[in-house]
């Protein structure tokens, strides 16, 4: 670590900056979390052995713990010491890392997303974490670990308006000399959607958000487990109490199983609601002239922004519970190439508006893709052979299997459960068929699918990356084909279309892409 690593105030007019002292807190906490995540198994083994052997009594325990804490605190301080950043000639430059030095030089125009995050431990300060996302791989992500909110917002505005300039620059040679007052109206925000706690509770009920809680509780599983069994005991639900002897009536057993399941469901549902409220509390979706900005969070505040022109696909998804409650989850999806699967919460490639009502969904869809007819356009159903194929390849084998299995126990009566299963599965296939549909207009392609709830997708024809038509031997004989549109945000496929129609769709989409030559970004 020589002098070359020192910030050089000499070069350029912007000096390198050090972070405020709060950032040490950030480094300490993130190192701790990383440590816990890496050694979670070791820690739980240790926690277990604490109960069996007397590790706490060992002479090494306290000194070991103290050393660990000191090391973590020191590493936090070191990370702070070696972290410098500056904003310089429309570039963000960051130098960080103690052992592995990392230099990041990120031009404004390459920054695709600017996220302002406020972890809970920053909530009492005026600081935030600024996350800069590029279109490239996840490794290129840069973080300014502690920056005042005002500065963060200022920088975000600068970066976002640089993006606008960049677009203008493409046709003109006028370099980026846009004045402040010209860019500011671009950035005036209007809130176009809010989610109340009621909506979030619905969202928690209809979507499994348990993992938010589960993830946070991971280090304490053992304790929770034993506490839970203690509580069951107290409730009189313990196995030992219920089954003192081997003579247990079947109804007792089933009652036990049912009450346990209800209990589990209840706990899951409340955990899920809590998770939804924690992540999406005070949810707002705002819009500037060309961008959507999502803000939410009870403890840690999240801010994700997405450019409207980068939306590849709008998905409005529903499961059966959403369908009953007349709600849907709306996603604006953008390019996700080169990213690892991200958690929905932190994902910048998907912008979720949780549990919106139908009118809200319509408004948002119209906003994201103007003049789309997602809710009006008549969908063409897929071919009826979809049903017969799934009856043959899906319903028939499963029902026969059940028939065979039940025959051993029930004899001829085995027909009943097999028949029941066949009826249920056929119903599912039929409903599935009824939901599938595709439609196209001059600008967009629409796809509808689902079982009970209806999923709707809408994408601009000119943003398609690739088209695939596929058919099996049987489908070829019937002149049917599946079609798949590859978008930067993933694929959309529709099965069992008449071959001519699939061909027309493919021709049409290719023509639209190739003749318009419009950008997909």
């Amino acid at each position, binding site marked *: 670590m020589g002098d070359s690593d020192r910030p050089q105030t000499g070069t350029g007019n912007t000096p390198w900056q050090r972070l405020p002292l709060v950032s040490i807190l950030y480094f300490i906490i993130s190192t701790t979390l990383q440590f816990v995540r890496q050694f979670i198994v070791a820690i739980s083994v240790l926690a277990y052995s604490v109960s069996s052997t007397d590790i706490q009594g060992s002479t090494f325990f306290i000194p070991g713990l103290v050393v660990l804490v000191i090391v973590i605190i020191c590493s936090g301080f070191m990370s702070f010491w070696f972290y410098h950043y500056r904003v310089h000639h429309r570039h963000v430059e960051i130098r960080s890392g103690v052992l592995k030095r990392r230099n990041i030089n990120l031009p404004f125009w390459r920054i695709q997303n600017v996220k302002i995050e406020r972890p809970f431990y920053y909530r009492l300060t005026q600081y935030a974490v600024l996350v800069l996302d590029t279109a490239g791989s996840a490794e290129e992500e840069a973080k300014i670990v502690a920056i005042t909110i005002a500065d963060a917002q200022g920088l975000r505005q600068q970066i976002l308006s640089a993006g606008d300039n960049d677009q203008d620059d493409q046709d003109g040679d006028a370099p980026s000399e846009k004045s402040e007052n010209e860019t500011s109206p671009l950035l005036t925000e209007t809130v176009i959607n809010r989610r109340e706690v009621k909506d979030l509770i619905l969202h928690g009920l209809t979507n499994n958000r348990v993992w938010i809680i589960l993830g946070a509780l991971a280090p304490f599983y053992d304790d929770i487990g034993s506490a839970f069994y203690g509580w069951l005991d107290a409730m009189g639900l313990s196995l030992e109490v219920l089954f003192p002897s081997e003579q247990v009536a079947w109804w007792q057993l089933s009652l036990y199983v049912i009450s346990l399941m209800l209990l589990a469901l209840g706990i899951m549902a409340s955990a899920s609601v809590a998770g939804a409220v924690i992540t999406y509390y005070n949810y707002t979706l705002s819009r500037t002239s060309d961008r959507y900005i999502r803000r939410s969070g009870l403890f840690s505040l999240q801010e994700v922004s997405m450019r409207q022109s980068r939306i590849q696909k709008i998905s409005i998804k529903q499961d059966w519970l959403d369908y009953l409650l007349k709600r849907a989850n709306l996603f604006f999806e953008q390019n996700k190439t080169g990213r690892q699967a991200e958690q929905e919460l932190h994902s910048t490639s998907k912008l979720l508006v949780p549990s919106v009502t139908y009118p809200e969904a319509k408004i948002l869809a119209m906003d994201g893709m103007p003049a789309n007819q997602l809710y009006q356009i008549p969908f063409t159903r897929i071919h009826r052979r979809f049903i017969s194929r799934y009856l043959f390849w899906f319903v028939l084998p499963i029902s026969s299997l059940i028939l065979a299995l039940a025959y051993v126990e029930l004899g001829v009566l085995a027909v009943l459960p097999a028949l029941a299963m066949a009826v249920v599965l056929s119903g599912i296939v039929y409903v599935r068929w009824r939901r599938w549909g595709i439609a196209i207009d001059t600008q967009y392609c629409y796809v509808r699918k689902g079982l009970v709830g209806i999923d709707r997708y809408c994408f601009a024809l000119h943003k398609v990356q*690739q088209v695939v038509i596929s058919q099996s031997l049987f489908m070829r004989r019937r002149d049917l084909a599946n079609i798949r549109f590859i978008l930067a945000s993933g694929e959309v496929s529709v099965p069992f279309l008449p071959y001519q129609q699939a061909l027309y769709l493919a*021709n049409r989409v290719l023509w639209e892409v190739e003749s318009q030559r419009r950008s997909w970004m």
Partner: protein
Amino acid sequence: MSDEVFSNKTVSPQTLPDLAELAFAPISAAYGKVNLGIVVTITTVLLLIALGVRFQPFTVLPAPLFAVSYYGLMVIPIMGTLLAVYQWFADKQIKYALREQDLSLTQGLIFRRLVSQPILRIQHIELKRGPLDRLAGLAKLQVFSAGGAGHTFEIPGLPIAQAQKIRQFILAHKDIGAR
């Protein structure tokens, strides 16, 4: 929404360029031969191992292993033959077509696929040549667009000169590199 210009022109299906009229060209015949060679080699090696296990005079084998080698002797040649036949005919189905604005590839014996990749959306191109490809003078053309690794458009088994020509054609396209 500065770049969204609303347009609502009518498009008649007859005037659209038609994928059904693509003039497909087969890939190199050597590709099928190389693949056939691979299948035959692997089958032979497996067969030799099974034979060796069964008839080696050195030790007495545990009973289950002995039984497995017996089934191996029956199953390996059958599977190998089936695979070779399938591979041979499937490879003959791989064909590609170029148009001014897009590349297409069709393949598949039981499940037939037609993939079309607009050149405008291509982000970068790679020519890949494994050791066997080099031996046979072949190359694999890979074309990447923003759709994820699972959707890489790929023409295998092109004669190297041909592959380079296609690559040049794509690179020379005026829309390449447009976002």
